[in-house]
């Protein structure tokens, strides 16, 4: 009972942190402390929930205690918050990355003025993402998506230079249209089912068969959430928005935001509410294949380190979507494991690019070189992240890509399996470009006096690098039983909502 009643804290803590930061902005050290403390608390909460989680257990909270109406009306009134295996899996990832990013930005954000604004927006974004994960109500999902999105538009523009403003405007317009499409989809669903609760919707849709309207809803929601997840052809904003944000925010956007708002929402809506119809599976597979290809090939010809990483995100989200689109147990396992790995190594690589920029003042890889000797921690952790991204055994990324490719073969998608393998070779190529041009070779004269980044930044880098190296251990049966398997069961079986 206690567990249920503390579910809203996932949203309340960062929200309170955000407002306290804004109130106490003048007090020295408060914004940093609150930013780190809020994310520590939410991470501790998600650890608490995963410890309390027994097989198939679901925590449900009726907000405002409208539960009594259930008996009278036969459907749920009011908002439900639901924590099941998939939710808790995502909560762990989001809050872990948020915590490390908050620690990192204690040092990094000294480059900017008005640090409290950064922490306020950051915590608002975290509140929105946690809300998206724990809600069991379609309209509430839309509201939280918007909270996280608007905070992220503002964070992309944080530098307020030409480049940042332009990227943010593009992102805001495309994100705004995406939100409208999502809202339209939610309205159509409401008019078809008469409820906003995901569990009820699922039951009603399963009873009544699928009305013709449902295909329109598929289209609207896939486009809307696809825009948030930056799947090709909806990706145009990402390569501008992600590199323009400050490095910790790039790490949050690429590492967790596109997954919480895009991938999680797609999985939740299409698996839990619609029961994963065949048409959606085909659309997802096609979009995934195109995303993998376009993202990887365009990344190959980038010279801006962050822009290369941003295109790489498009490609890697393609892998996740491929696993989800296959829809078998192994496919979903691979997708979720790759989602975890991508969150870790992409956050790490963006934080590394921030560390390089912090020390050298440039993101252009043509101007770098020989940084390995000057910045051992940064280059070592970049290597760990890059190897995980490229899929070199025994790094974590290798196992998840392997599982996805095996799942594709098992499901008789031979061409897709071959395509995924081919694109992972292209991935190796652009990863080598980063390590070769930025970190190996001779030290440039201009960088003779650069130093390693400060302590808080190093802590985040080292922790994430360790996760990238040891992430493969999640597949050990005892560990998998507690973390990955419950999430897979929610999507494959009927364990959720």
């Amino acid at each position, binding site marked *: 009972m206690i567990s249920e009643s503390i579910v809203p804290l996932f949203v309340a803590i960062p929200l309170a942190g955000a407002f306290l930061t804004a109130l106490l902005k003048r007090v020295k050290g408060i914004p940093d402390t609150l930013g780190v403390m809020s994310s520590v608390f939410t991470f501790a909460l998600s650890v608490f929930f995963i410890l309390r989680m027994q097989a198939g257990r679901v925590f449900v909270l009726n907000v405002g205690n409208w539960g009594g109406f259930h008996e009278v009306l036969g459907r749920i009134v009011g908002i439900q918050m639901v924590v099941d295996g998939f939710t808790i899996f995502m909560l762990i990832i989001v809050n872990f990355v948020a915590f490390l990013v908050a620690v990192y930005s204690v040092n990094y954000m000294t480059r900017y003025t008005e640090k409290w604004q950064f922490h306020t927006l950051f915590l608002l974004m975290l509140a929105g993402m946690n809300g998206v994960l724990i809600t069991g109500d379609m309209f509430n999902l839309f509201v939280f998506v918007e909270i996280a999105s608007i905070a992220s538009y503002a964070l992309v*523009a944080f530098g307020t230079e030409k480049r940042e*403003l332009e*990227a943010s405007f593009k992102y*805001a317009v495309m994100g705004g*249209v995406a939100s409208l499409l999502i809202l*339209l989809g939610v309205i159509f669903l*409401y008019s078809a089912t008469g409820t906003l609760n995901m569990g009820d919707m699922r039951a009603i849709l399963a009873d009544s068969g699928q009305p013709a309207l449902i295909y329109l809803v598929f289209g609207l929601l896939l486009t809307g959430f696809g825009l948030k997840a930056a799947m090709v052809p909806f990706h145009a904003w990402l390569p501008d928005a992600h590199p323009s944000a400050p490095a910790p925010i790039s790490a949050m956007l690429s590492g967790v935001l596109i997954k919480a708002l895009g991938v999680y929402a797609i999985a939740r809506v299409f698996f839990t509410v619609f029961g994963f119809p065949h048409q959606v599976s085909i659309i997802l597979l096609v979009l995934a294949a195109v995303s993998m290809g376009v993202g990887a090939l365009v990344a190959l010809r980038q010279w801006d380190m962050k822009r290369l990483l941003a295109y790489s995100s498009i490609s890697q989200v393609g892998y996740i979507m491929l696993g989800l689109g296959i829809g078998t147990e192994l496919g979903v396992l691979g997708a979720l494991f790759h989602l975890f790995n991508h969150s870790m190594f992409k956050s790490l690589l963006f934080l590394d690019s921030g560390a390089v920029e912090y020390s050298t003042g440039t993101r252009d890889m043509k101007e770098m070189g020989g940084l390995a000797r000057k910045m051992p921690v940064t280059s070592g952790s970049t290597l760990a992240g890059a190897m995980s991204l490229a899929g070199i055994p025994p790094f974590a990324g290798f196992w998840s890509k392997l599982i996805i490719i095996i799942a594709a073969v098992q499901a008789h998608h031979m061409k897709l399996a071959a395509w995924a393998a081919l694109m992972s070779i292209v991935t190796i190529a652009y990863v080598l470009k980063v390590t070769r041009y930025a970190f190996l070779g001779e030290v440039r004269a201009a960088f003779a006096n650069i130093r390693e980044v400060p302590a808080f930044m190093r802590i985040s880098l080292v922790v994430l690098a360790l996760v990238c190296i040891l992430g493969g251990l999640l597949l050990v049966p005892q560990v998998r039983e507690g973390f990955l398997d419950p999430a897979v069961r929610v999507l494959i079986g009927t364990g959720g909502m």
Partner: protein
Amino acid sequence: MNAYMPYILCLILFCIGIYAVLSKRNIIKIILGVVIAEYAVNLFLILVAYKTGGRAAIFSATENIPPQSMVDPLPHALVLTSIVIGLATTAFMIALAIRLYGKYGTFDITRMRELRG
């Protein structure tokens, strides 16, 4: 025909908004396009709730209105939230437009070419 008219008008309004977003070069007009499309969606949300001759969903002591003849009150609550969110987005985009004007001295999106590729 007449019963569908509001929905068709709503669709037309939405298309006008999306058209403005896609084809206009002036930032302010793009923002207005988003706003128009947003109004269309909000209007649609209200239309979903409406039933012909429906009453407001308020119970009173003097009049006995059966619940079946009331309009669905839930979308009215939702549309309020949606309007507030729309306000936040619009305010943010306008703030961006002001900053962009300060940097470039123009609202023309084709003259802002920092980002490519």
